[in-house]
């Protein structure tokens, strides 16, 4: 059996989601953003919400998310995406509203907007890409940078005495009464990607069922910022990031709300 026959007679078992358009993404080779973009696109398609989705992009590497996923987008100021999403969802309650934010955007400059939107039980989903570094501005320290980790603004490694501790926003979110579903996922293996997709789907569904706010953190790599190959970055993430940022559901109150 030739390759051509398989392609001709076989079934397509994987294809780029159609909602993810053909515009080449500006992300570095191997960047986790691309995988999460695919998952978000797949979930919107599978929920048949293309015509009812309003997404909010951040400032950071994902600022141009609106160029790649073919839904309506608002491009927020740095950290303010949850405020835009709060108003949008309240004004259009039957729309699927989510933000897509990085660690600098969500856990640093936009901490107030994030915490308060989550705690107001806004029926939105926040997708939080945590790669422990500022990617777009060239690899500076993030609020989530691990102790000892070297970045452009902590070139000798993050030290408590100089920089304080890395922030676990997702753990904080899990304590808030307004949140329904809070989870931490990764996208470095097929199994992890499948779990992350289920998590995004669950969060989106809860938001449409009016059960409150949802936070899906994706522990991610930034191989350019970390100065590693994509493969090594995945390994480094498994060995270092997961120890501090434990994967799994932190809260699922979907049945109680």
């Amino acid at each position, binding site marked *: 059996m030739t390759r051509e026959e398989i392609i001709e007679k076989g079934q397509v078992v994987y294809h780029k989601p159609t909602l993810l358009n053909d515009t080449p993404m500006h992300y570095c080779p191997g960047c986790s953003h691309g995988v999460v973009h695919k998952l978000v696109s797949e979930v919107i398609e599978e929920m048949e919400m293309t015509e009812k989705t309003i997404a909010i992009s951040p400032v950071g590497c994902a600022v141009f998310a609106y160029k790649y996923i073919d839904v309506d987008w608002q491009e927020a*100021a740095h950290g303010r995406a949850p405020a835009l999403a709060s108003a949008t969802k309240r004004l259009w309650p039957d729309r699927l509203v989510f933000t897509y934010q990085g660690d600098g955007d969500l856990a640093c400059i936009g901490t107030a907007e994030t915490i308060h939107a989550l705690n107001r039980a806004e029926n939105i989903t926040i997708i939080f890409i945590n790669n422990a570094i500022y990617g777009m501005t060239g690899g500076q320290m993030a609020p989530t940078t691990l102790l000892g980790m070297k970045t452009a603004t902590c070139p000798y490694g993050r030290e408590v005495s100089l920089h304080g501790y890395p922030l676990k926003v997702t753990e904080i979110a899990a304590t808030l009464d307004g949140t329904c579903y809070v989870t931490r996922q990764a996208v470095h293996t097929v199994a992890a990607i499948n779990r992350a997709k289920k998590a995004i789907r669950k969060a989106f569904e809860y938001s449409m069922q009016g059960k409150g706010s949802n936070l899906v953190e994706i522990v991610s790599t930034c191989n350019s910022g970390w100065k590693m190959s994509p493969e090594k970055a995945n390994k480094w993430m498994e060995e270092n990031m997961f120890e501090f940022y434990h994967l799994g559901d932190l809260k699922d109150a979907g049945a109680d709300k």
Partner: protein
Amino acid sequence: MADQEITLMKGNEAIAHAAIRCGCDGYFGYPITPQSEVLETLAAEKPWETTGMVVLQAESEVSSINMVYGGASTGKKVMTSSSSPGISLMQEGISYMAGAELPALIVDVMRGGPGLGTIQPSQSDYFQACKGGGHGDYHLIVLAPASVQEMADFVDLAFTLAFRYRNPAMILADGAIGQMMEKVVLPPFKPRRTEEEIIKECPWATTGRVGGRKPNIITSLELRSEEMEVINLRIQAKYREIEEKEVRFEEFMLDDADYAIVAFGSAARIAKKSIEIARSQGIKVGLLRPITLWPFPTKEVQKLAERVKGILSLEINAGQMVEDIRLAVEGKVPVRHFGRLGGIIPDPDEVVDALKRSF
């Protein structure tokens, strides 16, 4: 007619009632003196149970203005209100909205600064309202009410202009207009637009790709310099059109005037009394009251400079609008400023003294 009923209320309350009545879809705000009655009145009126208007107390002015940014991005009629320090915090979001060309209403009930300043009335936000208070080349459409009636009337006018030009509009009131009680005839009720109407009227809005249309993107970002220049030029052309078509002003006893006072808001009310006193002393003086501070009535000030001997800019600040008057006058006649600071409203007699000293 119940709609025509004359009631007595504060300027801030009039803003809230007018918002509900003009079909506003959402208010997002944060308490700050001297404008907190806007949010308080809305909370007490519960419009979400009647017109369906959303009212939300945000965690900060930064969040309020970004909620307005999000709401305006969907074509809804949304607004916020604050006072000077809060408006300073909002400037980032206002710049983004001007860049993304979004219609919205921002109410600034001014108090004295700089810094935490005072909670007493002031007009010292003229610069941050009229000159594009945040980063980038932009303008807001700025309306300056001088009565509680105008507080009520300008809400609908501001929304109309904001949507006509896809540009944020501001009602720039001072603490005195916000806090004073006056009789007011509230505007008649106008229903909120339906979602279908919004989608039709605002084909640019992020409402979801209804009917499978191509995605709508609301952004102020463009990294290609050539494209960014084109966007800026288009926005500037819009500003020139607004300057051409939307200047509003009031003239008072200018026909035979030898001198003119230019004043807005509370200062214009003081000016009228000062003019009465001055005329009783044989000084022929009149008033030009800009109603739109941006676009500024430049041509009217120019015409004034052709026929009066001097112009006094009366402001409750250290002299901000006077710069625009001088730009318009181009040195043809003397232009002086008089104002009080620290939240003090000038006394009509001291304005007359200032007139005499100035010319």
